[in-house]
């Protein structure tokens, strides 16, 4: 028997308190008032007081509204039919398509994977972004953030990777996305014809704050099911700082003692619980997470990027519109470079970065007014080619092609003894003069 309660005793922030009995922690409820209805979730029980966070926000909620408990926790429909669909932060379709009532439901925010059932990752995910593939390749089961200041084209990068990456399923979780950004994602996926392998869970900036918290869990719960079924899933999240800000807002409404810049003390665990869903299942599929974390004030020591950096396996920095080649790091790259990828991969990677660092020094030297030597010209030439052929986000080439282009670029600017690559590699790959 489902009972209704209509004695809301407290409304604070997006949290309401209602007097009720026999309610379970984490249970879902609907809050119904004048012409509006919202889902809510139990987050705390104290005697007969039940605290609920209301997904649609508490604006307009009256103390006399009807609260109806649904006897189950937050769930998401799961099945192949999810592919190609777009949902909002409470899991409802927002693409005008049918509600998926016939599909089995799965609970979100499930338990963590037994560490013993994980395997050392060994799959390479090609993104066709050379700065990623060549210099910091993405490894299956890796969790990598893209650290960027506001205004950087991080969503563009994410969309590109979403379109081109060789994953079986791509799940986009939009957290606090501007509506325009959402439309851009949708259009790019449509145009690239990859909508059929894509699922989107979208919370836009104007949607209620609580729904932000659900998006990563919805996206990752679906990903986990596909992963167990043997699919290689790529989860794209943007922006996790908005997620952390929502945590902060809820914590403050719950009168929790803040720890650092107002964020709750559990920020690390809360972020880790999501990122740790990235996994390579023994004998099944994998989940790889690429998540944008905007850095307030471009400050990497801000609590959100800082805690993220401790959780993730490396990071990409997006600066001045390009993936920054020096600070960015994929900590798992040595698991695939030269093992899964072509043997010359590691050599090209190191040599090209070293020479690019050198050419940046040359640029600085010239900027300080020193004389230019003929050698400098070659470095400048290299620097320009490196930008045009690798750094530019518009470049769309596969790894092998990028490696060949790397050899070609080196050969155009330098002689074999200047690049510091093993002789046997030079013999095999150095382009012959025509």
């Amino acid at each position, binding site marked *: 028997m489902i009972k209704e309660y209509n004695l809301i005793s407290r409304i604070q922030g997006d949290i309401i308190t209602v007097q009720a009995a026999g309610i*379970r922690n984490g249970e879902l409820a609907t809050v119904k008032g004048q012409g509006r209805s919202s889902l809510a979730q139990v987050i705390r*029980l*104290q005697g007969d007081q039940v605290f609920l966070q209301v997904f649609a926000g508490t604006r307009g909620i009256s103390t006399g509204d009807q609260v109806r408990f649904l006897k189950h926790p937050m769930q998401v429909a799961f099945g192949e039919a999810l592919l190609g669909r777009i949902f909002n932060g409470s899991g409802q379709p927002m693409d005008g398509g049918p509600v998926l009532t016939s599909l089995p439901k799965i609970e979100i925010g*499930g338990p*963590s994977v037994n560490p013993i059932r*994980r395997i050392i990752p060994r799959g390479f995910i090609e993104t066709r972004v050379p700065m990623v593939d060549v210099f910091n390749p993405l490894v299956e089961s890796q969790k990598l953030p893209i650290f960027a200041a506001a205004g950087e084209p991080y969503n563009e990068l994410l969309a590109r990777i979403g379109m081109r990456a060789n994953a079986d399923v791509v799940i986009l979780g939009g957290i606090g996305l501007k509506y325009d950004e959402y439309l851009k994602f949708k259009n790019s996926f449509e145009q690239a014809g990859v909508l059929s392998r894509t699922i989107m869970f979208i919370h836009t900036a104007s949607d209620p704050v609580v729904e932000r918290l659900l998006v990563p869990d919805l996206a990752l719960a679906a990903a986990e099911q596909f992963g167990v079924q043997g699919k290689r899933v790529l989860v794209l999240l943007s922006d996790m700082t908005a997620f952390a800000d929502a945590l902060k807002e809820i914590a403050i409404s719950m009168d929790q003692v803040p*720890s650092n810049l107002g964020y709750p*003390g559990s920020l690390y665990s809360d972020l880790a619980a999501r990122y740790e869903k990235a996994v390579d299942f023994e004998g099944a599929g994998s989940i790889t997470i690429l998540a944008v974390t905007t850095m307030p004030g471009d400050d990497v*020591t801000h609590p959100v990027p800082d805690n993220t*950096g401790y959780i993730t396996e490396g990071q990409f920095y997006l600066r001045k519109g390009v993936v920054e080649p020096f600070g960015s790091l994929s900590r798992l790259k040595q698991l695939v470079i030269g093992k899964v990828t072509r043997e010359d991969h590691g050599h090209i990677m190191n040599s090209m970065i070293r020479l690019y660092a050198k050419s940046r020094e040359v640029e600085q030297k010239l900027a300080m007014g020193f004389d230019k030597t003929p050698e400098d010209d070659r470095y400048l030439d290299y620097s320009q080619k490196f930008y045009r052929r690798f750094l530019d986000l518009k470049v769309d080439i596969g790894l092998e092609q990028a490696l060949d282009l790397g050899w070609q670029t080196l050969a155009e600017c330098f002689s074999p003894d200047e690049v510091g690559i093993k002789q046997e590699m030079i013999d095999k790959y150095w382009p012959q003069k025509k």
Partner: protein
Amino acid sequence: MTDRTVGKVVSVNGPLVVAEIDPGREVMQNEVAYVHCQGQALKSEVIRIRGRQVDMQVFESTAGLMIGDAVDFSGQVLSAVLGPGMLGNIYDGLQNPLALLENNQGFFLKRGQYLPPLDEEKIWDFVPLAKKGDRVKAGEYLGEVTEGLFGHPIMAPLALSGNWEITEISPAGKYKISSHIARIKNQDGQEINVAMKQEWPVKQPMRAYRERLLPDKQLLTQCRLIDIFFPLAEGGTACIPGPFGAGKTVLQQIISRYAEADIVIIVACGERAGEVVETIREFPQLEDPQTGRSLMDRTVIICNTSSMPVAAREASIYTGLTLGEYYRQLGLKVLLLADSTSRWAQALRESSARLEEIPGEEAFPAYLESRIAAVYERAGVVKLHNESTGSLTMIGSVSPAGGNFEEPVTQNTLKVVGAFHGLSRSRSDQRRYPAIDPLISWSLYLRQMEDFLNLRHPEWVERVKQTHKLMADGHAVRQMMLVVGEEGISLPDLVSYQKSEIVDATCLQQDSFDPVDRATSRQRQIEDFLLLTEMVRHQFDFENKQQARDQMTRLQNLFFQMKYSPYQGEKYTGYRREIGRMLGKEEAR
């Protein structure tokens, strides 16, 4: 206790659950309780008692709990089960064997499942060491079983107080860990059975030894930067703080592989699961150079990764310490690596916030300092009742927020440890690994172990200090060069800068992926470092900077090639000879 206390849930707030017990019933601080939820019993620990209200932290997700759900109090505090069969195991923070959970539960860790930490069915060959009528105290050896390489002594229960007499002891034979192998009685006539396994409350230090000794012997890690400049003592403590990406974990992994300890306990506390996976998957294949067996045979992993329940994270360090103390009681050299104590402190902070305690600095609880001190104080070297010694060495890594060492966890840890291996972002950005910054790190053991270290060479400690000073000088010159350029500094300054660069490149930096360089034996450390200090002390006579640069670059390359050459091989001795010639000696010693 006649019958057990029960209670009912009255409040649920994340992992904090408040139960109300009947008036007049007993409940104990840190007692283990089980909260019954939808047919599962969730393990939890009492952390505060106010009248009939008992606050408990639940070691599992509290989703689905309801007001009025039943709570059973066990009458026991949170304990670890100790005995033969722990080596090679992978436990969670509450000592559940993860490998066995695997068989039952597939990919995911379902809640409310607890398994015995030790194999109850395994048969052990027991040999008595004591005889009927012997008097024993807590921790004295009654007998022994063989576990892998070790004779694993079976002790009189560690919790005993006073003197007891053996009234019965089993003959040599095959027994399970729960079998009684002896019967003992005290003066009051109280008589108890002794099994091969026993329990110990994890938050209580184990003190069944004669006395604690001053750590004055070195624990070799085979990491040169640590062993030579900031050495670690058997029974000592060290902390490794560092910003993310500075190589904390790689350093810990290297130490766990090559340190000369009998037992290594790895506590993965709130860190990435991926890191533990590497250890779990690789250790069984790696050979322990000392014994020739798999590294896993000397290792116990306690694994409570970042997405596993927070309350159990707090327990995981204590579980690790208890296991470590147990092996120390067996007369072994134990090394405990905790990665990372910051996550443990954050778990304290989370539960403190839920208890609505008044927060201290950065919202950490006011008792953070004393808790950290109590944890590190459990390390130490002790003399056992049978005159042999055992040691527990602890290395804790710290993950300071923003890489800033001024935060409370780092600062409170520095107060209580004997060595500080501070990792710096600038060194890791320059790819100078291990990124321990020689200018900020220190070790009290360098002085404390002076006599022991000088067994390597009469001037050892002096030479270490001299070389350390050179590093500081070299750094100062480097700073100066950034301003005035190489032209602006004197020739002697340039030479000391070059010397410091040679020391840095060929001694401090160690390539953890190179089969030769990743571990340096004691003997090789001595020979290589003495040769290096010959170079440091050598008065070079250069005519100009160009000559200095050329010569020093050549010298650096020789040292560099030497460090990658197998010890005492042909190439190695060749390079040594050549270096000796450059330093104007026939054979450097």
